[in-house]
Structure formats: structure tokens, C-alpha cells
């Protein structure tokens, strides 16, 4: 199955309201999935005989803080997780999107939570560690959620838009 609209309908049949919407205006069309069911949708996409999205290429997190650039879709801050999938068997590509609050329960410092997809695609283990490290998303059920690029005792999540560089790190001036 190559057409994103067909895939969207197939997913909607199976997961009903958990599949939020289909966006076709973008260069790469995407399907938005409710955050709690991303792993289940992942298993379905990987194993269903006419989908077989066995490769997870990339997970990207994008931060939209509640501020400077007002636009109609930006309802006061959100984080987006974008999953790029490939089916080697059918040569098709798919983009999934999950929208999260920037902080859990809107309490700054409490990381937003989303189920891990590492049981579906083992490559997600490292991608999710990277997102946890740089963007501050907590992946529930992840086998080994540690920082990966920054040192273990680094504070904050550097790719967040409101991140402020610390003045020093173990006596090394950073500014």
C-alpha cells in the first residue's frame, strides 16, 4: 500500500479516534496519531501484510514554544515527534506525527511522556535516547533511557527553544 490516504483509512478503521488527522498540504503528507497509541500503531504498521513498514528511519522532535511567532495552529506551545518510516518491501514511505505538551501537566520541569517504540523498531532505542537528551521527552518503557550525546550530568535539554546555555560546566567557562 503506497498511497497515504489509503493507509490513513486503513489505520482509522483499525484504531478509530486514535488516528487524529491526515495532513496532505505539506510537502511530505503526515498522519497524526494520538500519543498514547503510537507503539500499537507502530506494531500494526510493521506487521500488517500490505504495509510492512519494517524500517524506522528517523525520529525527530520539534519544539514550538508559546511565544514569539504567533500563528493560527500554535495553541500555546507544543512538542511534536515525527516518525519517518520506510517499507523496503513496497518501497513506500510514511510520516507519523505525535503532538505532546511541552511539560507534563503544564508544570515546567516535568517531562512529557510518550510510549517507547523500541520494541517495534530496535533502532528507536538510540533515537529516543537522543530526543530525551536534547529535547526532554520521557519515553515510557524505554529499556535504557540515558543521555547519549551530552555528558550524563548535563542540565537541561539544549534543543528546546527556551534553553539557556549554562555559564560554566565543572569550572570550564562556556560563555
Amino acid at each position, binding site marked *: 500500500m503506497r498511497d497515504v490516504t489509503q493507509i490513513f483509512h486503513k489505520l482509522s478503521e483499525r484504531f478509530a479516534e486514535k488516528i487524529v488527522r491526515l495532513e496532505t498540504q505539506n510537502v511530505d503528507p503526515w498522519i497524526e496519531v494520538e500519543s498514547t497509541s503510537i507503539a500499537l500503531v507502530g506494531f500494526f504498521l510493521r506487521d500488517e501484510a500490505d504495509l510492512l513498514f519494517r524500517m524506522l528511519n528517523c525520529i*525527530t522532535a520539534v519544539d514550538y514554544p508559546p511565544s514569539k511567532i504567533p500563528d493560527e495552529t500554535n495553541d500555546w506551545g507544543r512538542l511534536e515527534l515525527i516518525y519517518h518510516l520506510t517499507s523496503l518491501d513496497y518501497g513506500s514511505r510514511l510520516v507519523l506525527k505525535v503532538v505532546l505538551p511541552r511539560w507534563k501537566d503544564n508544570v515546567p520541569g516535568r517531562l512529557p511522556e510518550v510510549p517507547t517504540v523500541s520494541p517495534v*523498531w530496535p533502532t528507536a532505542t538510540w533515537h529516543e535516547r537522543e530526543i530525551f537528551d536534547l529535547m526532554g521527552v520521557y519515553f515510557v518503557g524505554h529499556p535504557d533511557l540515558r543521555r547519549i550525546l551530552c555528558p550524563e550530568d548535563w542540565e537541561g535539554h539544549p534543543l528546546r527553544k527556551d534553553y539557556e546555555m549554562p555559564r560554566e560546566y565543572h569550572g570550564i567557562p562556556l560563555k
Partner: protein
Amino acid sequence: MAKQQSILPAEQWESFDIQTEELLVNMGPQHPSTHGVLRLVLRTRGETVLELTPFIGYLHRCAEKIGENVSAQQWIPYTDRLDYLAAMNMNLGWALTVEKLLGMTVPERGRHLRVALVELDRIASHLVAVGTYALDLGNFTPFMYCFREREKILNLFEQISGARLTFSFIVAGGVRADAPAGWVEACREFLDQLPTTLSQVHHLLSTNAIFVRRTAGIGVLTKELAIGYGCSGPVLRASGVQWDLRRHGEPIYTSLYEDYHFEIAAPNPSGRYPPAEELPLPPPEAVVGDCWHRYFVRMYEIHQAAKLVRQALEKYEDSGGPVGSPIKHTHKLPKGEAYLETECPRGQMGFFVVGRDSPVPWRVRARSSSFCNLSVLPELCRGAFIADVPAILGSLDIVLGEVDR
């Protein structure tokens, strides 16, 4: 007086219980066979690796964060420094991603020049991979041969772009300049003498009994594992997956190669490659997905890339018109998101860009092929000998600049 203990007869040696303890062995971050700053912690029992944990991030330079603070065109030099052994391929990946978001196309002459450049860089990159791999396994000569040939490619790049490693030459909109007079001839001269060196390398490595013993059947990566871990490029193809983005990628990328002829370098289930000019046959010990095949896929790709460069030079000369011109730094990126993967020497390098009606992208993401290829290392090394760890790591051919970004 205690009776003196006699040495056990040979047939009882195996039953003699030697006390072995688990031992943590640290490799790196400065280790000659890690090709950069990578730290591996091995939990070993005797000579066997029970568990391997990679630690990365020593070369993290905040490339993605920088990308959010400079315009799309200004980020080109930063892509050079991701995979610094294949900077042309990195430039092309980012340039195409921006072009995809903008909905641009590049004139035909520029397209063929781009193919010639990235395929030349693929040869250069694979020569480093093969040469240093031989060095890891204690074979010094091929390293010198490979670097001698690579040097010639770098000279060609210097003639056209002025730089030897960090070119910033392929940019969104086209390439920075047309090739200087005599450049195409110089390329052809290089290609004419390349097969001699390649056959020497084949003699020294592909069929060399010691090299085969060190690589054949070592670190076997199954198809399922390779796909599950997002491996790509030669690592994926060596496991027998017929997948090459130059043929199976998105239209904006495959259109570069649509009228070119080349074979996808992947062994079939019996370990045979598509027929090509006088290449040695795989040794009987080699198993699809092992270190030997990962090495040989790269050698095979060098031959194919050389063919592609020849075709590209011919088409470049035949096509007239401009080679395209770089977009301006102030060129606004429209609202939208674009993701594109290209087939770089180390695998599928993906770039993701979010535009917001501004020349500066809202978000830039680099999906690194080495990052994913490295993540499968713990699986490959479990149960291997310590001495095989450099052999397995070398066969994955990672560049830490790309892993850590």
C-alpha cells in the same frame, strides 16, 4: 613433604577448570581502531565479549542547534563537517532537502556535475574505508595504495572547489561554479588508472587468506536485524537487501540517476554479486552479512561509482546551459516540513527541515547513517572475541563526526 603435583595429561586439559572472572575492558575514546573519539566498554570473560556498550558524544558540536540560527545556505559548511570523508554527499543531501521544500529543480548540466562529484567522493570515501580497515587488521600496504588514489581525487576537488575536504560546493540551487578547463580530462585520466590499484587491492585483501580468515563469517548481521536497527548503505546491502536509494529513493533524488546505468552492490542469498568486470569471487567461507561482504560491497561500489562518474562526465559535456546558481542567503523557506534521505557512502543520510517563512529554518535535523549503523554494534559483538571487535567495528565504517553531529 607434599607430593609434587603432576601436570595433567593433554586429554584432560579441557576438564581442568580454569578460574575465569568477568572483566571490564575499556576501549577508547582514543584508540587507533575506533577512527575517532568513540568509547567502548566491553564486559568480557576470557577472550569472549559478553556485552559491549558504546559511549558516544565526544564530538558533539550542536550542529542541529546551529542550524536553527543560520540560514539554510549558511548551514552548508556545517554539513561538510558531519561526514567529513564524504562532504560532497552531505552537501547534496542538504541542498536537495532545501530544494524539496522550495520545490526547485536544478538545470541538467548542474545535475550531471553533481552526480560526477558525489560519485567521485563515494570512491574517495570507500577508499578510506577499505584502506583503514586493512590497517585495522594489520595489513599496511593497501592503506598506502588507497590513500594515494584518494589524494588524486582530493586534487580534483581542489581544482574545482578550492578545498580538499570541506567543499561547501553543492548548494541549494545548483553548484557554486562550473568546472574549470581541463577538469573533465583530469577526471578521465584518474579513472583510466584507477582499475590497476583496485586489482592490487583485490589481490592484497579480497582473496588474501589472512584477511579472509579475519573477516569471513565474523560479525554476521542478519537481514532482519539490519532492517530493525535502521542500518543502511553498504551495511544493509551486505546483508543481502537489494536496497539503494539511488534507485529506490524519492523522485527528487532518483531523478538525478534516472538515465544512468549501474548495479546495486548487494549479494544474493548464495553470496554472489551481479556480474561485473573481473572481480574476484567470494571465498567459500564468506557468509552473507559478515565483515567480508561489508568490505566487498564497498569495493564493488567503487567499481560502480567509477562507471557512474564516466557516464556523468559524458552527459555533463553533452548538455549545455547553466549549472544552476546558489539561492540567496535571504531566500525565505516557506512554511512546511521536508525530509529527504540520500544514499551517502555510509548509508542513508537524512535531512529534515522545518520552514517558517523565514530564511532561517525553525528546525534542522540530521539523521545520521553512522549513528544507526553503530547502534547495532552491541548485537554484533555479543559472543565475539575481543580481537574481532576492531574487525567488526571497522567493517561498519562509521565516521564519528556524523554520529555525534
